[in-house]
């Protein structure tokens, strides 16, 4: 993995600045005057991406959020259009500009995968409409959580591209790097202290320190051959006994893009809304077709489908693995089923 510092020297926007930690709230409020700003805030013992502005405290020390920021681009529930007896009314409205503030590198990579999924063959107007009006203020990870393994997949803990602004916690302040014209404008609108280039050395130290903190890894070398030759490994039978088929792992996944379309009629039966909501291949009904036949009736087939899709089937489709190592599926699993452990066990480790 190349070192981020090397990249910075080649950047089009060389200006480095510093954002004092006690200036974060003011910075976010300033942005909130012009944009819808979403950032990590506390919800009970967890964190969620929520609107930031006056009153909401940004928690930039968060490890992860319950749902990925994907929810701001591909919403859990979304109205596609309304219909009535005379026709339909599209629901693609003028999208306000939004900022995802404090998004971690793994989740930025996940959005890059969704960008492909929602544009390669057929452009999804609902997703793209939000996406092109979204700015990304990313935050490099200095404290990976117990369940994180982005380092194994090259999707973290530090980000190389795909951001408008990139923050790194270098101790007394955040180092701010610019990644786009739009990011430059954000920086120019506020007064930030210019940073000396020595700040990049500090950044490198934080990076080296973060790298050492990973407790999980997923070895990608030879992964294709490994999975292709272990379709009937005894582990699938064990996972069938363990897995609750609850669907949580896929519901919290930042790269899962499946949805179900449901018509919601008014009681008059003359008007209604066509809606979509997140769906999951872990659920029994997912692969059921008309007259009741089900292509993935067995739980082991569904567990395998999830893991094979992320680690094997994505690559020919999108040119990248479908897992970014965010660890949400591990954290959310009641049965502690762990995708990194599944791969290790197949490897016979």
């Amino acid at each position, binding site marked *: 993995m190349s070192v981020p510092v090397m990249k910075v020297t080649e950047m089009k926007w060389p200006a480095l600045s510093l954002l004092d930690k006690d200036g974060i709230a003011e910075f976010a409020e300033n942005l909130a005057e012009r944009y819808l700003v979403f950032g990590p805030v506390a919800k009970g013992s967890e964190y969620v991406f929520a609107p930031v502005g006056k009153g909401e405290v940004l928690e930039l020390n968060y490890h992860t959020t319950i749902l990925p920021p994907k929810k701001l681009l591909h919403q*859990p529930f979304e109205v596609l259009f309304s219909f009535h007896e005379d026709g339909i009314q599209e629901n693609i409205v003028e999208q306000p500009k939004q900022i995802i503030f404090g998004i971690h590198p793994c989740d930025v990579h996940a959005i890059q995968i969704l960008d492909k999924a929602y544009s390669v063959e057929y452009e999804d107007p609902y997703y793209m409409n939000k996406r092109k009006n979204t700015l990304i203020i990313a935050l490099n990870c200095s404290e990976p959580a117990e369940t994180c393994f982005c380092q194994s997949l090259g999707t973290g803990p530090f980000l190389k591209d795909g951001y408008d602004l990139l923050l790194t916690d270098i101790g007394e302040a955040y180092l701010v790097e610019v990644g786009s014209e739009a990011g430059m404008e954000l920086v120019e609108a506020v007064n930030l202290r210019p940073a000396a280039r020595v700040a990049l050395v500090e950044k490198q130290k934080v990076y080296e320190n973060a790298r050492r903190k990973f407790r999980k890894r997923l070895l990608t070398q030879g992964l294709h051959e490994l999975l292709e030759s272990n379709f009937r490994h005894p582990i699938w039978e064990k996972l069938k006994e363990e897995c*609750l088929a609850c669907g949580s792992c896929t519901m919290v996944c930042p790269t899962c893009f499946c949805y179900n379309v449901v018509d919601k009629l008014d009681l008059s039966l003359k008007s209604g809304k066509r809606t979509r909501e997140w769906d999951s291949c872990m659920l029994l009904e997912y692969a059921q077709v008309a007259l009741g036949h089900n292509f993935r009736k067995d739980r082991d087939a569904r567990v395998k489908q999830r893991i094979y899709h992320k680690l094997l089937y994505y690559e020919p489709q999108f040119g990248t693995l479908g897992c970014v190592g965010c660890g949400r599926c591990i954290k959310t699993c009641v049965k502690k089923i762990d995708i990194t452990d599944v791969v290790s066990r197949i490897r016979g480790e």
Partner: protein
Amino acid sequence: MSKPKIAIYKMSSCAGCQLEILNFEPMLLDLLGAVDLSYFVMAKRENEEGPYDIGLVEGAITCGEEISRLKKARQQCRMLVAFGSCACYGGLPSIKNWTSEREIEERVYPQPHLLESTTAYGIDHYVTVDAYLKGCPASREELLEFVKGVLLGIKPYLRPHSVCVECKLHENVCLFTSQGKVCMGPVTTAGCGALCPANNKPCEGCRGPANDANTESLARTFDEYGLHRSDVVRLFRKFAGMTPEFSRGAEVL
């Protein structure tokens, strides 16, 4: 189709499911625009004779008199619906099924010789059932979806998957993995909007088994969390212990 006639029958129950119909309040008039509540003893003085298009049966069947009323209801209604978890699976009344009938009768009634109580079953133990609206109480939204489905002649969309799905869709904090509270959500049918977990209360399993519910595996996790075997049995037998899935969960340890 013309306005369907609906009949509401009460068996062994707390009447909470039929109360949900009155709880429609602002929507009740819209509902009455779409259907005739022809037989609804709880709400109306004048009730029409059958036949009816839809019969909503609330409550478990726990005595001979209910069996004959249920069979008559089946004859009177084109579609018969198990309305709420008692009618679906026996519900709360079914918690008595693992104690002798006599002991239960004596515990509850001063003159038990007047009773003819039987094992508490859901209504499909005795008659053919066309639809199941789960929940304690049944969900108003699902009742509406069902009515709309009948009016259109299509299968209504009722969530078949786990409560976890709805918890995640609403981004609730997971009580199980974040707070160490045991929760029936992973094996229980959604459709309630994950109401209890959203209010910081673990799911009690009132809506019965979800699609492909792996109750044995969940019971083993309850055991790992330190629950006594008798607590695990109580969790699985509270609302739907008569279903094969929850029955397996209750018996695996």
